[in-house]
Each structure stands twice: as structure tokens, then as C-alpha cells.
């Protein structure tokens, strides 16, 4: 008898939960439309849970910093040294930032983007970091004629998304030539091996490196695409090393890079001489306990820093959040949001075609905290500054080949 009562109670609870959610969905509707009239909505989808959560959170902070400035009124620095006043708000209304969690999963990313476009009627969508999430959602956003500014994704395939799609970070193709140049200048490398994660970013860089090598009369002798989250990479490492390449171009995420570098060190692959990494700052904290495994490894990183960056972004960031910027990508989020706000102001309306045109113009004149933000006709960055670094004495230091 007691058990039956429990079951009845459970039935009722389950029913309440379901009704509750249904009610939430239904009541959400009038709430949204009422809001849409007195604010300009900017949407952002970013990974707040899952493997990319730290980058995702940092990007959210960067975007918030920019939107808060615009809502309070701000003098935006331009490339020619002058400033442009914006705000409070744009076109007489405050900007409302709506952030959705993409969970680092493509299906959840699509859910969040659908909500932003269909329910919140946002004028611009900002995000994402992962190319695997940006490609499918970009296709949908573009089809619906909404402007999207991607923050950290850099797969070369993004170029084909469509006219409403923009990118705030240089595509992998630019990284490819930077890497080949570095290895050539540093050790005169003629044969290359790539050691990349088997995802759109990794494969994008691999293709770009081999293309750049071919253009310079060199060649790729091994292209290893490894599966992420494995506990052993010795087989893949030896595969990359087998044809005895002059240089190995590699990338790995945080803790995984620690494992890769440790195993390369144990196998005696001479990483300090031959290994060159892309986006090296993403594993710098993970190797602090065993600095010998990364000693002498050279590589590139997005060139984010300097006085302008500190004064415009890193300083105020620390004031607002009580810690230094978590990654380099928050700055790109800041620039994306600032350009979006400038474009909406320039367009004078939330009409997608006008905003799209205005983004091109705004990106041309705006002085980004992460460097020059000008885009080409397809909305991709024309140029990206990379810092050349070497891991030495427990940290990354500038390096001149």
C-alpha cells in the first residue's frame, strides 16, 4: 500500500514537472515580445558547460564588458587615433545581451541559436569558439538573414557560410603560413610533419600547413590526426616522427598537451629542437609542474597584449571580474560586441542588410584590442597578428628566429 502511494506521488510530481515546463514555455512568449520593443537584442551562444567552458566564460565576459560600455556611453578608439562616441545604448534604446549555453555540443548549440533567432529576435548573434558548432549554426543563422559575428572559430570552411557571416579571428589558413615561416626561419625546415587533433580546427591547420609548405617548395611527410581524450599518444607520436621530418607542427588542448609533450619527451623526440606549436598559451599552465617537457618548444599565439590592450581591456576586465583575463579569446569577444554595436548604430536600424553593410565599415575603422579587425568581402579577417614565442624557464617568452 505504502509503495503504491509513493508511486502515485511520483506520478503527480512528474505531471507537475511536465506542466511546469509547458507553462514556462507558454508564458515565455508574451514576455519576449514585450521586451523586444524597448531594447535592441544582441544574442550570444557560448560554451558555459563542457570541455570549452573556460574559453566560453571568458568570451562572455569580454562581450559583457563591451555591451556595458555601450549602454553607459563610451568613446570608442578608432584606428586613425580619433574616437567615436557611442551610447548610452544605440538608436535610443539600451542593448540587451542574451547569452545561451551551447554546452560544447552541436545539438545544444542549435537549440540555443534557434531560441536567439526565433524567440528573442536578436539583431546580431555573437559566437562561437568551436568551428564544429559554428558551421551548422552559422548556416541556419545566415539562412534566416541575421548577422553573425563568430568570435574564436577559425576553420577555413567558415568562408562559405554566407553573406551575413563574419569572423573576428584569422582563419587557420593564416596560421598555416605563419607556422611554416617560423620553422623555416628558425631551423631551415624543408620537410614537415603535422600532429593535430582530428577536429575541424586541427585538420584545417594541417591542410593550411601542407599547402603553405608546398608553395615554398617544401613538403609534408606525415600528417597525423589524433583522437582527442586518449590516455596514450605514443603510437601517433612515433607515426609523426617515423619519416624523420625537419619540423613537427603540433597542437593540443591544455591537459592533453601536457600528456603529448611528456610522452614525446620520454620517447626522446627532441621537441625542443623540432617542435612548433600553434596557440601555445593554451597549455602553458598545464606544464608548470614539469617544465622540462616543454623547454625550448617554439610556437605562435594570437598577438594579444600591449599597452592598448591592457588599458582598454585587461585592466577594466580585472576591475570587473577580480582576475586577469582567463584566455586570449575574451578580447576577441569584446571586439566582436563593439563592432556589432557600432554597426547597429551606423545602420540606424535593426535591418539585417543595413547592419551587414555597416559591419564591413565598422570593422575597417575600429581599433580592436586584439589588433586590426578589417574584413574582406566574405567577412573574414584579412590579417592576423601572431606573436612568436618560446617556452623557457617555466614560461612563454618572446622569440626571434
Amino acid at each position, binding site marked *: 500500500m505504502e509503495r503504491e502511494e509513493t508511486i502515485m506521488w511520483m506520478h503527480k510530481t512528474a505531471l507537475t514537472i511536465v506542466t511546469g515546463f509547458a507553462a514556462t514555455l507558454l508564458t515565455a512568449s508574451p514576455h519576449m*515580445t514585450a521586451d523586444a520593443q524597448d531594447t535592441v537584442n544582441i544574442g550570444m551562444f557560448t560554451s*558555459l558547460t563542457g570541455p570549452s567552458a573556460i574559453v566560453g566564460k571568458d568570451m562572455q565576459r569580454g562581450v559583457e564588458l563591451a555591451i556595458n560600455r555601450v549602454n553607459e556611453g563610451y568613446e570608442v578608439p578608432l584606428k586613425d587615433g580619433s574616437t567615436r562616441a557611442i551610447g548610452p545604448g544605440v538608436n535610443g534604446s539600451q542593448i540587451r545581451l542574451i547569452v545561451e*549555453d551551447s554546452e560544447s555540443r*552541436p545539438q545544444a548549440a542549435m537549440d540555443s541559436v534557434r531560441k536567439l533567432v526565433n524567440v528573442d529576435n536578436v539583431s546580431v548573434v555573437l559566437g562561437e569558439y568551436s568551428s564544429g558548432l559554428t558551421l551548422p549554426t552559422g548556416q541556419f543563422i545566415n539562412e534566416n538573414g541575421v548577422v553573425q559575428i563568430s568570435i574564436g572559430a577559425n576553420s577555413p570552411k567558415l568562408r562559405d557560410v554566407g553573406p551575413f557571416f563574419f569572423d573576428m579571428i584569422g582563419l587557420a589558413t593564416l596560421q598555416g603560413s605563419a607556422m611554416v615561416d617560423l620553422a623555416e626561419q628558425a631551423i631551415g625546415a624543408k620537410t614537415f610533419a603535422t600532429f593535430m587533433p582530428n577536429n575541424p580546427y586541427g585538420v584545417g591547420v594541417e591542410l593550411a600547413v601542407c599547402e603553405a609548405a608546398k608553395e615554398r617548395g617544401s613538403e609534408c611527410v606525415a600528417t597525423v590526426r589524433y583522437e582527442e581524450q586518449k590516455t596514450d599518444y605514443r603510437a601517433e607520436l612515433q607515426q609523426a616522427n617515423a619519416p624523420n621530418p625537419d619540423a613537427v607542427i603540433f597542437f593540443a588542448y591544455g591537459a592533453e598537451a601536457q600528456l603529448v609533450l611528456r610522452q614525446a619527451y620520454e620517447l626522446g623526440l627532441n621537441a625542443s629542437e623540432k617542435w612548433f606549436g600553434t596557440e601555445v598559451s593554451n597549455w602553458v599552465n598545464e606544464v608548470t609542474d614539469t617544465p622540462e617537457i616543454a623547454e625550448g618548444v617554439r610556437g605562435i599565439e594570437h598577438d594579444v597584449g600591449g599597452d592598448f590592450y591592457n588599458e582598454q581591456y585587461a585592466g577594466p576586465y580585472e576591475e570587473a571580474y577580480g582576475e586577469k583575463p582567463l584566455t586570449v579569446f575574451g578580447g576577441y569577444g569584446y571586439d566582436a560586441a563593439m563592432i556589432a554595436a557600432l554597426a547597429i548604430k551606423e545602420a540606424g536600424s535593426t535591418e539585417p542588410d543595413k547592419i551587414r553593410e555597416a559591419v564591413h565599415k565598422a570593422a575597417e575603422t575600429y581599433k580592436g584590442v586584439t589588433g586590426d579587425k578589417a574584413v574582406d568581402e566574405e567577412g573574414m579577417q584579412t590579417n592576423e597578428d601572431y606573436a612568436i614565442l618560446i617556452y623557457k624557464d617555466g614560461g612563454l617568452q618572446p622569440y626571434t628566429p
Partner: protein
Amino acid sequence: MTDFLIYLATMVGIWGILSLSLNLQYGVTGLVNLGHIVFFMLGAYISTIMVVLAGWPIFLGMAAGVVAAAAFGALMALPTSNLQQDYWAISTLAAAEIVRLVFLNTQLGGPYSGAAFGMSGIPRPLRAYFTSGSYDLFYMVMVLTVLAICLALCWWVLATPFGRTIKALREGDHVPLALGKRIATFRIRSMALGGGIGGLAGALFAHYNAFISPQYFLPLETFIVWAMVILGGAGNFVGVIVGTVIIQSIYNSTRFLKDFVPIDQALLGSLRMILIAVLIILVILYMPKGLIPERRRRYERPPAAQG
């Protein structure tokens, strides 16, 4: 808002078809398939390859996806049909990962197509006949109709001798053996049928989402289907659809919570995971047969209560 609800209903329909097919294999036949997403993946990929690369008409491509998934279901069961439950479960998980790794490492089309990049710009059926607003509505109606047909098909299968045999199989090998049935054949046929329906869900998904990549078919997705089946009630076809509705609602309605309650979005994401986990634990503890348990056939009335 309406557009978003239409989208949700479409996704519920697609996932509903997928959970129906898992229910046919697990809930009815008792086959613990931990690689169920493989059928969804094959349906999606084969249909896309046929339509985008081979230039087949969309509906023919979808049919090819269904056939491929059904054939793979049978193929998967062929060498393993005599394995015991736990070994069987492991082999299904491995089979799904093998297929995913094949797609992850196969370039399809240009240099930036297939492999890790996935396939984009997948054409949508009958797109030219609708405006962009009404197309989603059309697709929802189509998906829900297919869901209804699949539900009817499942009910029909259960009423056939084949259906009764696979149900007996779930309770142990002895009964069907005693009746002179070949167990392996029934397992293979059940896997093929479930696989075909799962493939249909995948094909519908690919041509709706217009983009697929190996990232969509990670083992995690199989467990989401499992959550739907267990929550709703394994063995009951309506139950698993209710389970699908609940899981999808939790995933999406929690997005709206932050518009009413001042709550951090990152916290909300974690809360969503906790909510689903707690719900499943509660269901397993207090309602082990799910929210809508399977209705057992009664062969005789229970003895009248003694006064």
C-alpha cells in the same frame, strides 16, 4: 516563439522515432544496445552521401539511409547473436564507434568536406514549394506523421507472431527455444527492424538540420536516447515518446528560466544536467518501469478478493 515551438516539436518527433526504435530492440526484444546512435548516423550519412555526392532524389536517398541502417543492424547481429547480454552490449558500443571513426576519417567531396568538417548544405525535401516560414511547419507535420506511422508499425509488429516471439525472447531464451524458434534469426530481424526505423530518424534529421558531422554522433547521444526510453517506460511505445518530450523539454525550457529568475547561465547549464540525472534516479528508484509502464497482458482474471 511559434517558430521555436515548431522546431522543438520537430526535434521531439525525430528523437521520438529514434527512441521508438531503441524501444523495439531493448524494451521489446531485450537487446541492450549501447551503440544505438549508429543507426541514426548511418541514416543521416548514407542519405546525405547519396543525395549530395551521387545526386539521387532526396526521398530515394532517405530510403537508402533506411536500408543501410537496417542492413547494418542485421550485420551487427550476425556474428554476435549468440552472445549473452553484457557481451552483446559491449559489442554494440564498439560497432557504433567504429562507424563513427570511419566517417571521421573519410573525406567526402572537397578538401573541406566530410571527415572532421562534416557535410554542410544538405538539401531539404520539397523546399522550393514553401516560403521559409511555412517550410518548418511542413517539416514538422511530415516528421510527426512519420512518427505516427512508426508508432502504428510498432504496435502492429507486437500483434504479429513475430512480435510475440521477440517479446518472449526478452524474458529469456527458454520459452522461444521450447517453441522451436531459432533465437538468432529473431534477434537479427529485430535489430534490422529497429535499425531501419533509427535510420529513418537519422535521414529526417540530416535533411532538416542541413548539416551533419561526426560530432553529432558521439556515444553521449546514445545515452540521451536511453534516458528517454527508461524515463518514459521501456516496453511501452507511448511511454518512450512521453520520455522524449520530457527530456527535450528539460533541455530547452530551462533556457527560459533565466528570463524570470536572476540566475547565472553557467549555473543553469549544470543544474539542467543535475535535474535530468535526479529525475532518472528517482524514476529508477520509485518507478522502475518508467512513467508509463508497459501494460502486461493478463491471461486470467486475478482471484477475487476474499471478503
